């Protein structure tokens, strides 16, 4: 039996759907102004204890020489600030895809939204657009304030660093799609997003070089593409020592991007079908 549809999907209709979702998310964000302010303040609050922890180790010395022995730069605050900004984009993908799915389940609009003639992956991805724009703006403000308070000295190749970030983020989307599938099954996002995002960020070396991790965590860190993304971006901006030759790290990032997007989309399609068959989409 062939399925007839009156919908005439095209790339323009998909684009309109993406923009509509992004606009709706932006309206939600602006509706709570205190949250908007805290999007800048929160990373500053998070980073300040790290600064003072660093000061504890450099008292009486000219620079963080211990830190420099690991990564090739004593400028630990610039190292951490780059990691912090990148980790915000990681959080955007995780919260944007996984948590927004749960929010729609709670609000009871997931089923009706999914009745629209748009691919589910497009709708999931679109939930991150507004968050990406907001993250970019707030992180720019955050970096200016952090540079003033703690110092930030990145003098390397910014274009190369941005080009390195792109495959890293796209690989994360694949991860996010697979993660959304788990949220559909477990019907609880908050704890899972919180734990997974924190673990991925920490194991990738947001605050420290991964060489300091205990032996039982190091293999996990080296298996994460993000580790090489963070490492390469810092190498371009700060001239730090890399874990692997830079060219290898870029090849790994591109390969991970292709594998993760394909795998993530496949897992999500399978799980979504199971949930529709079981009729559990509206449960929460």
């Amino acid at each position, binding site marked *: 039996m062939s399925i007839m549809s009156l919908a005439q999907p095209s790339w323009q209709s998909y684009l309109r759907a993406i923009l509509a979702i992004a606009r709706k998310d932006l309206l939600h964000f602006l509706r709570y102004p205190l949250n908007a302010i805290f999007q800048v303040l929160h990373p500053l609050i998070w980073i300040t204890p790290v600064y003072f922890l660093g000061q504890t180790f*450099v008292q009486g010395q000219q620079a963080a020489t211990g830190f420099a022995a*690991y990564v090739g730069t004593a400028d630990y605050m610039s190292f951490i600030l780059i990691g912090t900004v990148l980790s915000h984009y990681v959080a955007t993908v995780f919260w944007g895809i996984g948590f927004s799915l749960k929010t729609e389940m709670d609000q009871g609009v997931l089923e009706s939204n999914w009745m629209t003639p748009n691919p589910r992956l497009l709708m999931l991805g679109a939930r991150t657009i507004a968050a990406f724009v907001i993250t970019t703006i707030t992180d720019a403000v955050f970096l200016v304030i952090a540079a003033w308070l703690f110092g930030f000295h990145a003098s390397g190749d910014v274009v190369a660093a941005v080009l390195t970030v792109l495959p890293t983020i796209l690989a994360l989307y694949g991860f996010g799609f697979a993660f959304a599938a788990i949220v559909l099954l477990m019907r609880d996002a908050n704890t899972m997003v919180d734990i997974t995002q924190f673990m991925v960020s920490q194991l990738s070396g947001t605050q420290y070089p991964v060489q300091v991790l205990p032996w039982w965590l190091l293999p996990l860190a080296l298996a994460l593409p993000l580790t090489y993304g963070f490492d390469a971006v810092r190498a371009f901006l700060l001239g730090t020592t890399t874990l692997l030759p830079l060219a290898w790290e870029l090849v790994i990032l591109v390969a991970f991007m292709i594998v993760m997007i394909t795998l993530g989309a496949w897992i999500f399609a399978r799980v979504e079908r199971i949930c529709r068959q079981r009729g559990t989409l509206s449960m929460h």
Partner: protein
Amino acid sequence: MQTLVQRSFASELRAILAVANKEWTIFRRYPTWIAAFLFWPVMFPLAAIMTARALGGPSGAGFGAFAQLAGTPDYVAYIALGNTVYMWMNITLWGVGLTLRNEQMRGTLESNWLCPVWRISMVVGQSLQHLATSLVFLAITFVEFWLVFGVQIVRGNVGLVLLVLALLVPCIYGIGIIFGSLVLRFKEPNAMVFLVRGLVMIFCGVSYPLAVLPGWMQTVAQYIPLTYAIQGIRDIGLRGASLAELTPTLMPLAWFAALLPILGFVTFTVTERRARRTGALGQY
């Protein structure tokens, strides 16, 4: 005003236990809490511990400065003790602090408050369930630190540790009730949690000695009870302090323990009256 209700101490106690039981049922309904309880005790402090290890350097060049300021070379136990108290505070803010707000979001706050019991009994019931789960969280923390890092974080005189914890309980739950009342009033819980826990993280020396802070920040720290609790537990565990040596730390903590629950009750009563008068109880 006449009422057929016959309130007594026993009826209030039954209400407290019924609310605690209801909260417990909701809590265990989402099994991801098991993952959270196993994950956070070690993974959260891991970020600061690994940062400290990186700052110390592979040869340990930076640890001398830390030992001089902190009074101990054992940076793992030092950070673990501070972070455990912080995590307790953090989960209380998310738990007790957001319970009223969650009821408001579910639309059950008004109907529950029509029951012929003191409103504060409902908050106490919620806090009771939360205290029980927090104690489990603390027990898991002690075990995990011993298994993962080989560090015993309950050291020294256990009786004194329990005394500090006993003084800390009314402080934390007093703050939790104040916080919950304010969330009910201002309706932006995330931003408020970030603010309060941020203040604790920065000013209370969760991961570093207070000596590294500028003078004005050390003055602010003196007005936060967690500063004394963290200092007391560290003094007992890392320096083997006696009761006499702890007295200057315990006295301010005892004052906070006496005043904060009263302040919590007053804040809650004022907020509750205002919400009823303005009809804002059901708004979100």
